[in-house]
C-alpha cells in the first residue's frame, strides 16, 4: 500500500552549487516518481509556491527535496510542504555530502541518484506525526536560601517569574550572614558582610513574586513534561510569624540554654530564639528538641504568637524549573584529630574566627582566647581537609581558604597590631586581583611560612605547632596561643539529599555536577534543573552571585521559550505494559518514571534511542514515527541503485556526526564517492538487524559514528562489538563494520577516517 503513495521530487540547482557537478537531467531520467522538477533556488520564498502547487496538481502524498543539508534547511521545507504534514518530507543532501565533496561528475551523479532514491524509499515509510510542544509553567523553586539562592530568586522575580524560595533552617541568609567581614579584590579592604547582604534580603522580602518558606525541605520530586511536582515539608516554628513582633520577652524568660549554632556554638542561646538580628522571617522560633514546654514564653507573649503544639505540614508545589542552591558545609575536624580541634578550646576554625571577630559574635568582635586574654601569636594552618587524598579528605582545593585566611589575618592585625599572625601554607592561591590583597597582607606584617604542619600539641600554657619550614628545609616547633584551621568546603547535607531526591548527577566529590563545564556550566544533567553557588563546587560570594544570576537567565530561556520537540520518541502501549519498571532502569536520559500507575515518558529528555526497548519483555514500547522501517527503507533505497562493481559504504550518524560530515563539505574537503551517509535520530536505533540487512543487500561496509559525550556511547560501542562477534561466528569479516568517535569540529579527522575505511574495504574486496 505504501508503494502506491505518490511521491514528488524537487531538485534544487542551488545556483550551480549542485547542478555544476551533478547532472540533474540524468537524475531525472533515473528516478521513477509521480513528479520530478528542477529549480534554481528552491529555498527562496518562491519555492513555497512551487512546492505547494505541485502537491495540489499532482496529488502528492510525500515529498523529497534534493538540495542542501537538512541541518540548514529542513525547517524551511517542512514549512513549504504545508498542507502536508512536515514529517512526510525528507531531504536528500546532495550538496554538503555530494557536490561539495566530489569532483567526478559521473560518480557524483550516481551517488546523488542513490541518495535521492534512499529518501524516496524513506518517505514512503513516513507517517504523519505532530511535533510536541512543551511549555513549562513560569514558576520556579529555588532550593536553598543562602546568598546564591537569594540572588537567583530575586533575579527571577524581577523578570516576573513566581519564585518559591525554600530554606530548611529558620532564617534565610546562609553562611554569608555569619562570616562577619567580606573582602572584595578591587577595594583592598574588608567590608561588613551583613551590610551587603541586608539590602538583598530586604528587596527579596518585599518582592511580591517571591514566597519564602523557611523550616522547609523538599522531600519528594517528580517530573512530567517540563513540570516538576514537588512535595515540601514545613516544620512548625511554634511562633506565628505574622503575630510575632520580635520583642524578645519570650527568650528572657526561657529557662533552657543551649549552644548557639549560628555562633558556631561559641555562645549560648535559649530554646526560643531568633537566629540573628537581621534574620528573616522576623520572628522567634522554638528549638523543640531542647524545649521543656515550661510555657513561660507562652505566658509572657503579649501578642499570643506562641503555640507549643504544631505539626509538620506537607505542601505540594508545581514548578517549571528548579534552581539548586543548597550550598556547602565545613570539614569535620574530628577527621584530622592531630590538630587538636576537639581537645583544645583555642584551636578554632576560620569560620569560628569570623564569629569571634564579628561585632555581632560571642565576644562582640574582640579577639579573645578562652581565658579572656588576647592571643600573642595566632598560627593559621591552610588546606585542612583540602588537597588531601587521605581517607575523609578532599582531593580538590577549596579555593577560598587562602583569601579567607588573609582577610582574617588582616582583621586581627588592624585591631591587634601586636599579635603575631603566621600563616602556614603549601601554596598561596590568590589568582587575579586577589594577588594585590596578598601583597597588602604582607605589608600589614602578617607572616608566612611555607610548610604543611603535622600536628598541634599543648605544652604548658601554649600550643606547639610542628611543621617543616620547607624553604629553609628545617623542622620547627612554633609556639602559639591560638591556632586557626582553614577547613575544607564540602557539599552540605542538603546538597547530598537534594541530589538524591531530584536524581541529578554529582561529581566524585559529591557536588552537583554541571551538564558540561563549557557548554552548560549551570545546567545539571536533568533538564530544567539548574545549579548555582557552593552546591556546585567551592567558590566565593562573588562567584556564587554571578552563577546565581546566570542560573536565573537560563531559567528564563527555558521557561519563556517553550520547546518544540521532534516526536520521534518512545511511546508506551499501556495495554501491554505491566509497569515492571525495567525501562526506567535502562533509560540513560532519566526520561521515564511511573505516574498514576503508568509509565510516563518525558518528551523533553527522551532521545528516541530505544534503549528501553531491550528491557521490555512485554514489547510494550515503540519509537514513534516508524523509525526502524524508515532506516531499513533508506538502506534499501541506497543499495537498490548500486551499480555493478561499485563500492557502497553506509555511514550512520546522528545529529552531531552528521554536522561534522556537513562541515567536510562546507570546507570543500573530500572523501570517496562510496561513502553514503544516513542520518538517524540516535545511532542506537541502528540495530544489528539493520546492519545485517545492509550487508546482505550489497553494502560493502558499515561505519557507525558516535560522539563520545553521548550517554549511549558505551552502549553503542558494546553493541557494535557484539555485531562483529556475531559476524565472526558466521564466518564473515568483522572488519566490514567499524565504530568511530565523531566530534563536530574534528571534521578533517572524520574525512580521513571515512577515506581510510573505504581503502580498507577496497583491500578486503581485492582479496
Amino acid at each position: 500500500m505504501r508503494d502506491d503513495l505518490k511521491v514528488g521530487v524537487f531538485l534544487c540547482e542551488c545556483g550551480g552549487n549542485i547542478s555544476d557537478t551533478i547532472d540533474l537531467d540524468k537524475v531525472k531520467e533515473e528516478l521513477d516518481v509521480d513528479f520530478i522538477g528542477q529549480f534554481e533556488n528552491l529555498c527562496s520564498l518562491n519555492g513555497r509556491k512551487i512546492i505547494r502547487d505541485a502537491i495540489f496538481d499532482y496529488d502528492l502524498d510525500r515529498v523529497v527535496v534534493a538540495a542542501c543539508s537538512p541541518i540548514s534547511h529542513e525547517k524551511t521545507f517542512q514549512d513549504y510542504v504545508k498542507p502536508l504534514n512536515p514529517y512526510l518530507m525528507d531531504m536528500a543532501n546532495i550538496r554538503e555530502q555530494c557536490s561539495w565533496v566530489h569532483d567526478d561528475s559521473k560518480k557524483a551523479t550516481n551517488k546523488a541518484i542513490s541518495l535521492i532514491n534512499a529518501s524516496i524509499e524513506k518517505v514512503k515509510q513516513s507517517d504523519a506525526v505532530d511535533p510536541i510542544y512543551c511549555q513549562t509553567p513560569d514558576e520556579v523553586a529555588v532550593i536553598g536560601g543562602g546568598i546564591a539562592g537569594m540572588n537567583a530568586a530575586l533575579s527571577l522575580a524581577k523578570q516576573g517569574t513566581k519564585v518559591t524560595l525554600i530554606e530548611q533552617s529558620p532564617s534565610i541568609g546562609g553562611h554569608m550572614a555569619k562570616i562577619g567581614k567580606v573582602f572584595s579584590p578591587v577595594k583592598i579592604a574588608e567590608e561588613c558582610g551583613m551590610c551587603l547582604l541586608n539590602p538583598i534580603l530586604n528587596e527579596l522580602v518585599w518582592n511580591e513574586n517571591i514566597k519564602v518558606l523557611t523550616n522547609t525541605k523538599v522531600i519528594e520530586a517528580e517530573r512530567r513534561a517540563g513540570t516538576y511536582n514537588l512535595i515540601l515539608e514545613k516544620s512548625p516554628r511554634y511562633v506565628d510569624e505574622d503575630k510575632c513582633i520580635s520583642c524578645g520577652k519570650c527568650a528572657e524568660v526561657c529557662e533552657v540554654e543551649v549552644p548557639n549554632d549560628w555562633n558556631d556554638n561559641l555562645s549560648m542561646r535559649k530554646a526560643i530564639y531568633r537566629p540573628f538580628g537581621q534574620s528573616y522571617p522576623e520572628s522567634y522560633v522554638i528549638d523543640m528538641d531542647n524545649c521543656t514546654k515550661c510555657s513561660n514564653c507562652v505566658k509572657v507573649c503579649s501578642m499570643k504568637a506562641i503555640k507549643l503544639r504544631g505539626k509538620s505540614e506537607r505542601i505540594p508545589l508545581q514548578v517549571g524549573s528548579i534552581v539548586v542552591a543548597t550550598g556547602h558545609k565545613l570539614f569535620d575536624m574530628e577527621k584530622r584529630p592531630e590538630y587538636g580541634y576537639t581537645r583544645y578550646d583555642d584551636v578554632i576554625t576560620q569560620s569560628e574566627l569570623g564569629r569571634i571577630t564579628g561585632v555581632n559574635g560571642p565576644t562582640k568582635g574582640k579577639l579573645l582566647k578562652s581565658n579572656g586574654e588576647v592571643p600573642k601569636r595566632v598560627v593559621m594552618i591552610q588546606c585542612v581537609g583540602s588537597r588531601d587524598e587521605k581517607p575523609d579528605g578532599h582531593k580538590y582545593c577549596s579555593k577560598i581558604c587562602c583569601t579567607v585566611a588573609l582577610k582574617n589575618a588582616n582583621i586581627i592585625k588592624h585591631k591587634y597590631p601586636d599579635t603575631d599572625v603566621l600563616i602556614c601554607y603549601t601554596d598561596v592561591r590568590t589568582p587575579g586581583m586577589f594577588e594585590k590583597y596578598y601583597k597588602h597582607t604582607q605589608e600589614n606584617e602578617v607572616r608566612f611560612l611555607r610548610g604543611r604542619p603535622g600536628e598541634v600539641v599543648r605544652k604548658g600554657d601554649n600550643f606547639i605547632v610542628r611543621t617543616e619550614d620547607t624553604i629553609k628545609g628545617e623542622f620547627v616547633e612554633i609556639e602559639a596561643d591560638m591556632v586557626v584551621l582553614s577547613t575544607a568546603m564540602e557539599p552540605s547535607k542538603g546538597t547530598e539529599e537534594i541530589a538524591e531526591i531530584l536524581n541529578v548527577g554529582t561529581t566524585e566529590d559529591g557536588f552537583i555536577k554541571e551538564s558540561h563545564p563549557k557548554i552548560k556550566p549551570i545546567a545539571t544533567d536533568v533538564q530544567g534543573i539548574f545549579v548555582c553557588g557552593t552546591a556546585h563546587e567551592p567558590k566565593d560570594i562573588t562567584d556564587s552571585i554571578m552563577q546565581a544570576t546566570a542560573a536565573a537567565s537560563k531559567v528564563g530561556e527555558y521557561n519563556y521559550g517553550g520547546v518544540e520537540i521532534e516526536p520521534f520518541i518512545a511511546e508506551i502501549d499501556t495495554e501491554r505494559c505491566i509497569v515492571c519498571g525495567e525501562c526506567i532502569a535502562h533509560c540513560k536520559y532519566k526520561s521515564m518514571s511511573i505516574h498514576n500507575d503508568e509509565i510516563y515518558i518525558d518528551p523533553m529528555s527522551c532521545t528516541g534511542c530505544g534503549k528501553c526497548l531491550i528491557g521490555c519483555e512485554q514489547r510494550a514500547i515503540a519509537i514513534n514515527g516508524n523509525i526502524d522501517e524508515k532506516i531499513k527503507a533508506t538502506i534499501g533505497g541506497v543499495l537498490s541503485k548500486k551499480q555493478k562493481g561499485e563500492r557502497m559504504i553506509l555511514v550512520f550518524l546522528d545529529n552531531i556526526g552528521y554536522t561534522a560530515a556537513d562541515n567536510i563539505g562546507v570546507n570543500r574537503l573530500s572523501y570517496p564517492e562510496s561513502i553514503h551517509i544516513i542520518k538517524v535520530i540516535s545511532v542506537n536505533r541502528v540495530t544489528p538487524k539493520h546492519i545485517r540487512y545492509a550487508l546482505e543487500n550489497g553494502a560493502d561496509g558499515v561505519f557507525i559514528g558516535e560522539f563520545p559525550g553521548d550517554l549511549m556511547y558505551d552502549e553503542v560501542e558494546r553493541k557494535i562489538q557484539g555485531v562483529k562477534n556475531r559476524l565472526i561466528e558466521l564466518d564473515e569479516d568483522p572488519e566490514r563494520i567499524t565504530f568511530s568517535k565523531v566530534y563536530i569540529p574534528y571534521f578533517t579527522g572524520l574525512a580521513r577516517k571515512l577515506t581510510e575505511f573505504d581503502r580498507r574495504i577496497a583491500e578486503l574486496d581485492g582479496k
Partner: protein
Amino acid sequence: MSSQQKISDSPINFAEKIIEDVKNSKDEGVLKCVQCGMCTSICPAARHSDYNPRDIIERVLEGDESILADDNIWNCFYCYTCHSVCPVGNSVCEVNQILKQMAIENKIGYDKLYEYMGFADSYFNAAIGAIPEIFFKDIDRDVPGWWDFRLHLDEIRNELELDPPLMPSKETIDEVSKILTITGFKDKIEKIRASQEDYK
C-alpha cells in the same frame, strides 16, 4: 651554588624507575609531590637527625642518583607516619626502601647489611627470624637480666604450655632454603659476605 640542566637530561627517569619498582604501592604518587613538608613535620628521623623526607623526594624528582650513596637515607625508621598522612598519596617511607634496595643492587649499600647477616643465616639455615647474635653483647649490656631470661626461655614456655617448639622441622627448613635460593637471596648474601671479607 649553581647547576645546569642540559637539554638531553631527563631527570624524571629516576622517579620512573621508582614507580616501576615491585615494592611501590603508590602508583605515580612520587610524581605528585608538592613539597608541602607534612612528611618532615611528623618524621622522627627529621626531628633528631639530618634526614629530611621532603628533601628525599625533591632529590628523586631532580634525578639526583647520588642520593643512593647518602648515609641519611639509612636513618628512616620505617614508621610509615609520612606514608599515612601524605596529602598527595606519595610514600617517602616506601621510596626510601626502594632507594636502599637500589643501593644494595649497586653494591653501594652492602656495608649497611654486614651487621644484619645474622638475619639471613637464621632464616636460611633455621627458617626463623632471630636477632643476630652480633648484637647480643650490646643487649646484655643494655638490658639487665636479658641473657639470664633467654637461658630460661624453655622453662618459661613450658610453664605457659606453649607448643609447637621453637625450631621448625627439617622439611620446613629445606623448603625455605630452597625458596631463598631460587629468589636469588642466597647469591646476594654470598656476594655481600665476600665483600665483607674484603672490607675486613
